[in-house]
């Protein structure tokens, strides 16, 4: 049973706690000071859309690289009345999503849901939910690599300078070479976007399919990189454009006319899969909540007829 997180007034107070309470966890695991620092940094991030704000990332009982950045944001924001959804690759029951959700629930006791419409905080890895999110919600994205320039400039010192000077030519040259060689840009996920016409940002490894959802959205997008220790944000109604040449437009993925084998959707991102028995290739919606609700609606229609 987690106890409320009031900072200790003094070491004397801490020592007078019964021994077993000294080993309990604060609400939402992190101490209040740490949570406050994350929130302050997030405010700065929101004030400068797309700009990476360094923060003193705490270690958590989840390995680095497995979502500690997104987790710190969620832990810093979540309150007892929030409703939480955690997804990975669009699925609520993906093993890592389960693990993260369990830690958050264990240290907060908050209600959870798989229905995107009912969540107040959604933490996600590699997908944005198909259901358009609203101004009452926050989407927290887990970031493996916050630096969009990393592959053209490994040094963070030089990359910072490029951001400061707004000089993204190293990135653009890479896109030029792609078009020369392959006819279009070959970046598949982590497609670089320009935010508020200023900073180029890495939107995390979401597929191209999800990139247009960042543009002028109602929802607040928060990005956390725990291992690399950076936070950034896209506030509501911000312009977010994928980097593209005027005459070589940005295109999202195509599925060759395939439909989800469960709900029949053609309008969602599909995962290719292999039938374990027949070996045949099938497609299923990546967003399990979207798929499940569609199936329920179809069944309802059928029974209504």
């Amino acid at each position, binding site marked *: 049973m987690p106890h409320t997180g009031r900072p200790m007034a003094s070491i004397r107070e801490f020592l007078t706690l019964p021994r077993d309470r000294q080993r309990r966890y604060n609400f939402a695991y992190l101490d209040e000071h740490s949570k406050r620092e994350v929130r302050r940094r997030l405010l700065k991030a929101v004030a400068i859309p797309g700009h990476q704000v360094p923060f003193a990332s705490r270690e958590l009982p989840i390995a680095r690289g497995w979502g500690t950045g997104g987790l710190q944001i969620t832990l810093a924001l979540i309150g007892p009345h929030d409703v939480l959804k955690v997804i990975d690759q669009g699925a609520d029951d993906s093993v890592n999503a389960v693990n993260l959700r369990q830690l958050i629930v264990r240290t907060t006791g908050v209600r959870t849901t798989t229905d995107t419409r009912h969540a107040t905080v959604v933490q996600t890895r590699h997908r944005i939910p198909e259901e358009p999110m609203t101004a009452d919600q926050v989407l927290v994205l887990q970031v493996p690599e916050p630096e969009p320039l990393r592959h053209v400039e490994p040094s963070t010192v030089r990359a910072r300078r490029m951001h400061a000077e707004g000089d993204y030519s190293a990135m653009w040259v890479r896109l030029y*070479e792609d078009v020369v060689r392959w006819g279009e840009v070959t970046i598949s996920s982590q497609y670089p976007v320009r935010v508020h016409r200023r900073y180029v940002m890495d939107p995390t490894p979401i597929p191209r399919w999800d990139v247009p959802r960042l543009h002028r959205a109602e929802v607040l997008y928060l990005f956390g990189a725990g291992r690399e220790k950076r936070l950034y944000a896209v506030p509501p109604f911000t312009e977010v454009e994928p980097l593209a040449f005027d005459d070589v437009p940005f295109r999202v993925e195509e599925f060759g006319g395939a439909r989800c084998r469960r709900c029949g959707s053609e309008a969602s991102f599909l995962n290719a899969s292999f039938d374990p028995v027949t070996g045949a290739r099938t497609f299923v919606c990546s967003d399990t909540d979207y798929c499940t609700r569609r199936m329920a609606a179809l069944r309802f229609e059928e029974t209504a007829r």
Partner: protein
Amino acid sequence: MTAGAPLLRVDGLTKIYGSCCPACVALTGPDVGTNVCPRCRSVVACADISLVVDAGEIFGIVGESGSGKTTVLRCLYGDERPTSGCARLASLEDGRANVFEAPPRRRHEIRTRLLGMVYQHPSLGLRMDLSSGANIAERLLMVGQRHFGRIRARAQGLLERTEVPVGRMDEPPRRFSGGMQQRVQIAKALANDPPILLLDEVTSSLDASVQARVLDLIRELQRRLGVAMIVVSHDLGVIRLLASRTAVMKDGRIVEVGLTDQILEDPQHEYTQLLVGAQV
């Protein structure tokens, strides 16, 4: 731009490496015969350099190695920060702003739009890991061009103009001969139509036969495009061929400046006489 105003005006450009003391400039120079300050061991690479370049002209700087001529170019382009001095470009705030004191965003603009630089070693001016076309495209992308087709067409056009086979534009320059690499560098430097091109010993590492071809190209480009140039070389032959006016440098100072023909025919300074005598 005021009519008759020079394209570039440099006043008192000085670059000293090391701890620097008040006597540095006074205790070095061609009269003393050294660049190194005897008191603090700083190296006075160049001092009190003043020159003027008019639109469309080729200005030469000649001197042996260590004379400071490359340093002047590097300071103008922004590869080095001068110790003191000022440089004014007619296209920058009508010649009022000092290039050396420009803030970073402005300096970036100067390097991409107002100046072009061609280095002695192609690896300094080209990115060997990119195709030649991409090297030129980089300059265009730096100034905000976003139309792939037009960028590629312009790159093609520049390569044609510098006599690089267009069929090789998607190859990295490391596969090219030295002469061709230099021509790609020149194409790259011209990408954004800068009013001034800086050329630092561009033919010095090339074979004599290849040199001639590149020099002809430079002359041809200057004639056709009307771009002003500052050509730095230790070779009087190159200077004679290209420059209308020339400055002679020794031990970090300009010892003589004037019309190239006059300097070569009737050198005034002792050192210039030595130089002309040795190379003629």
